């Protein structure tokens, strides 16, 4: 086939699409759906700028509103992948989270909040990927050490910050998320 009809769930919203098979997930998200919070960096799988989170399993959505096709995926294991290295046509039915989908009812996700508080954003281009990777780190390991954070951030390149504040932001986010759980 040269085109495939697929459904993508992005930040809970279901999109019925007809995608050319050679289009990457990054292309479809940015160019077809105009969700430009996912950035294009190197296009070669090396910089991590296009990092998005994908639910490990295909979640079958029975609770969809017929008009809006909104489906909240159950808490599964979200893993960080590269949208530029993924063919959109192979992602039928997958639940994807981008940075724009992290805030809830106007409140920033703790990782976003921490990045702001720690001043971990300079030009901001690596930030969507960094924040999502931070979320992935903390969902798997709520109290990572600095070494663990640095190892997990190896796939995200930043040309501005020197990574120090990014690492601090992930540590801060870990504290914020822990205190949220206590409440």
């Amino acid at each position, binding site marked *: *086939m*040269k085109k*495939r009809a697929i459904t993508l769930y992005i930040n809970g919203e279901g999109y019925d699409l007809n995608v*050319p*098979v*050679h*289009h*990457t997930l990054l*292309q479809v998200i940015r160019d077809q759906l105009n969700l430009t919070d996912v950035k*294009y960096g*190197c*296009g*070669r*799988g*090396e910089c*991590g700028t296009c*990092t998005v989170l994908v639910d490990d399993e295909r979640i079958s959505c029975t609770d969809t509103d017929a008009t809006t096709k909104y489906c909240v995926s159950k808490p599964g294991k979200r*893993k*960080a*992948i*590269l949208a*530029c*290295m*993924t*063919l959109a*046509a*192979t992602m039928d039915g997958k639940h994807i989270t981008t940075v724009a989908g992290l805030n809830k009812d106007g409140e920033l996700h703790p990782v976003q909040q921490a990045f702001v508080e720690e001043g971990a954003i300079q030009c901001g281009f690596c930030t969507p990927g960094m924040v999502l*990777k931070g979320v*992935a780190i903390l969902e798997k390991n709520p109290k990572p050490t600095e070494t663990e954070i640095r*190892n*997990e951030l*190896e*796939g995200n390149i930043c040309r501005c910050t020197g990574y120090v504040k990014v690492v601090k932001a992930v540590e801060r986010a870990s504290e914020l998320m822990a205190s949220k759980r206590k409440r």
Partner: protein
Amino acid sequence: MPSSRILPEFELLLPESISEAVSLLAKYKDKAAVMAGGTDLIVSMTKGIAPDYVISLAEIPDLDYVSYSKTKGLRIGAMAALSKVADAPEVKEHYPALWKAAAINGTPQTRNMGTVVGNLLRASPSGDPCCAILAIGGSVVLEGPKGKREVSIDDFFLKYRVTARKPDELAIEVKLPPISNGICSAFQKMKRVTLDLAKVNAAVCLDMSGKTCKEARIAMGAVAPIPIRLKKSEALLKNVPITDTILKKVAETVPTEISPIDDVRSTAEYRREVSGVLVKRVIEEACSGK
């Protein structure tokens, strides 16, 4: 014009079973490229290499298993991601060389996408899982129109980036042997930056009886057109206690068994200089667990 923004066009095929995938391969053979994680294939496409057909394994269920049994050993399915292998406690405990190779290859994101079997099929001389599995031993299970066959990893890498897989065969899993009590393994990689390919890597698998090594398998990558075993160095470790003298002899023999080249990541001279030391350190790491 190769582009990292727009991939070349191709026909996408999405078989829903192994037998369907095999019949597609029998039909298209060399005109088709098989895609598991896509981390190798899509990079090639950004450089302009475009197969006519891409057979994606994404719709075939139950191909991503990592299953261990004490009697049968480890079986890794074609779609099992490197991170899944690295996260499996049985892999870390029983096959530490493969665990390390899977845990440090590429980046965390590519480890969630790329597969161990895909790394074997890519057959890059510097492949980390290639090196680890060549040391531990095992076989690749191929399924073709005439049925399944197993190829020992020792016979799998034929020449630069060419494997024993025939164009109408699908690699469905890699099997590693069961691990008896005395077996220990380790893997180390030398590279420029964190997400780099190896400039040289090495893995060993030792069958130990107390302090005596009964038998050793030593594999190295990025020092020849294919991942290789160092048979002369292995022979030095047959039925001997591992002493500093023996390790010194091994370190002197290693450089005589390799044929490195100059490339973007390193030089032949450097690779030759460090090869013996690297193997010595990997042997020491393998033994340190015991």
